């Protein structure tokens, strides 16, 4: 492992993403990617008494699905690195408290999935054989914590995004046949002064572009090197803004760039406004869709950049602007 350029890490013995698993809620199951997920839920409670408990169950079951699919025994997993959006990351810690695997809780808002994959890759290059990374989010528990009660009859602005209910998990291993994690570019915090908590795409797009530009400069690559450049949850508006910003820097990413928040819902029929968001957005779309595309060799090189808005409900009520972050991970066959 070596540092190249300003902030990119290149792996000498690239770790493998050996297996992925995903579970999503009912709304995601109605979306265009339904057939790619391992399991879809019929209701948001999944037999639990609260949404928080349901979210814990989702991440727990996703991790056990992953372990089941991969054939690796729990004893051979060196670490699980997980995070979510609820205060003090209770979904992951409650969901994984019975897992009996060393646990690192991480928080990077919606960028958590790639953050945990980056840490996992570093661990695997260093000492570990198998590391699991997982994230979850739940529409109802997120609305309760960040916005208004669900039953309140209010209107959402067109820039608002819909938190994805679900969880995605990936197993990063030392040995395997790929796809391989070749580079990671951890991002800087970028704050362009956006204060509207209903405009997350616009708040995070500058961070996404900063990380993407740095990745290109550090590695000497350009957009056409990748079959797909994928952002986490910028949504329709954030996606358009990012294309514009990159164009102003001389990079045309329009042809091979997509956003998980755009992909997971059908904007016209599902009334999700600017698209999906949340820790599970990037995690489920990568674990469900992109991982299978890599396995089937339909795409060979992807750059996954999860984006996060590092704020909470108190900071936005106090009029603070929203700092954005984006971490990139290059996955190749």
């Amino acid at each position, binding site marked *: 492992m070596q540092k190249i350029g300003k902030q990119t890490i290149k792996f000498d013995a690239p770790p493998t993403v050996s297996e992925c698993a995903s579970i999503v809620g009912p709304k995601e199951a109605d979306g265009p990617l339904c057939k790619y997920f391992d399991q879809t839920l019929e209701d948001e409670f999944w037999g639990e008494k609260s949404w928080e408990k349901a979210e814990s169950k989702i991440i727990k079951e996703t991790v056990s699905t992953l372990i089941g699919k991969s054939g690796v025994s729990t004893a051979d997993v060196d670490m699980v690195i997980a995070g979510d959006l609820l205060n003090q990351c209770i979904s992951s810690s409650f969901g994984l408290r019975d897992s009996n695997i060393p646990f690192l809780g991480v928080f990077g808002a919606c960028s958590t999935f790639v953050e945990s994959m980056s840490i996992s890759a570093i661990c695997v290059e260093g000492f570990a054989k198998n590391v699991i990374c997982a994230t979850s989010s739940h529409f109802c528990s997120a609305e309760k914590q960040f916005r208004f009660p669900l*039953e309140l*009859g209010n209107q959402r602005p067109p820039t608002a995004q819909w938190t994805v209910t679900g969880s995605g998990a990936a197993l990063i291993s030392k040995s395997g046949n790929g796809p391989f994690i070749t580079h990671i570019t951890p991002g800087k915090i970028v704050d362009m002064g956006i204060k509207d908590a209903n405009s997350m795409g616009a708040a995070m797009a500058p961070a996404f572009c900063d990380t993407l530009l740095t990745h290109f400069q550090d590695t000497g690559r350009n957009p056409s090197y990748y079959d797909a450049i994928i952002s986490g949850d910028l949504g329709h508006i954030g996606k358009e803004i990012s294309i514009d910003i990159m164009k102003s820097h001389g990079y045309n990413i329009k042809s091979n760039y997509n956003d998980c928040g755009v992909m997971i819902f059908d904007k016209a029929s599902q009334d999700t406004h600017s698209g999906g968001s949340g820790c599970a957005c990037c995690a489920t779309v990568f674990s469900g869709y992109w991982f299978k595309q890599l396995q089937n060799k339909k795409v060979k090189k992807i750059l996954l950049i999860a984006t996060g808005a590092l704020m909470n409900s108190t900071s936005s009520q106090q009029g603070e602007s929203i700092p954005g972050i984006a971490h990139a991970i290059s996955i190749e066959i």
Partner: protein
Amino acid sequence: MDPTQTKQGYQDYVDKKSPNSPIAKNLFNAFWTGGLICSIGQIILNICKERGFDITTSGTIVSIILIGLSAFLTGLNIFNKIGKFCGAGSLIPITGFANSIVSPAMEYKSEGYVMGVGAKMFTVARTCFSFWYFKCYYCWNYIFNF
């Protein structure tokens, strides 16, 4: 040109790029649905008066029926759909007030009756209460100082 050169420049660019709420449609829907809810209230009031209740009692009956109906529909997960369509039309009449109390009560039931329902029930509505007191205070001063 790079829109992220200055914060103000980026804000202006984002404002231009972000679609606005459909204001004309929202206003129109709020106008006729708000009118409809108030008309329903007026019809109940007239019926009560015809049945021989005085105006104060009739008004109370109207409030009870509309609040009850709104709370019931909130419980059935229907009011949020009505509210999404009507906007201020269902929010401003007493129906919106009932919804703003019942919805947090339902949401926080999982935290128990004392610290959940009891403590959080007025999360949305209490700002309304606070400003009512302000309004009364200033109106009172205004009337009696002139």
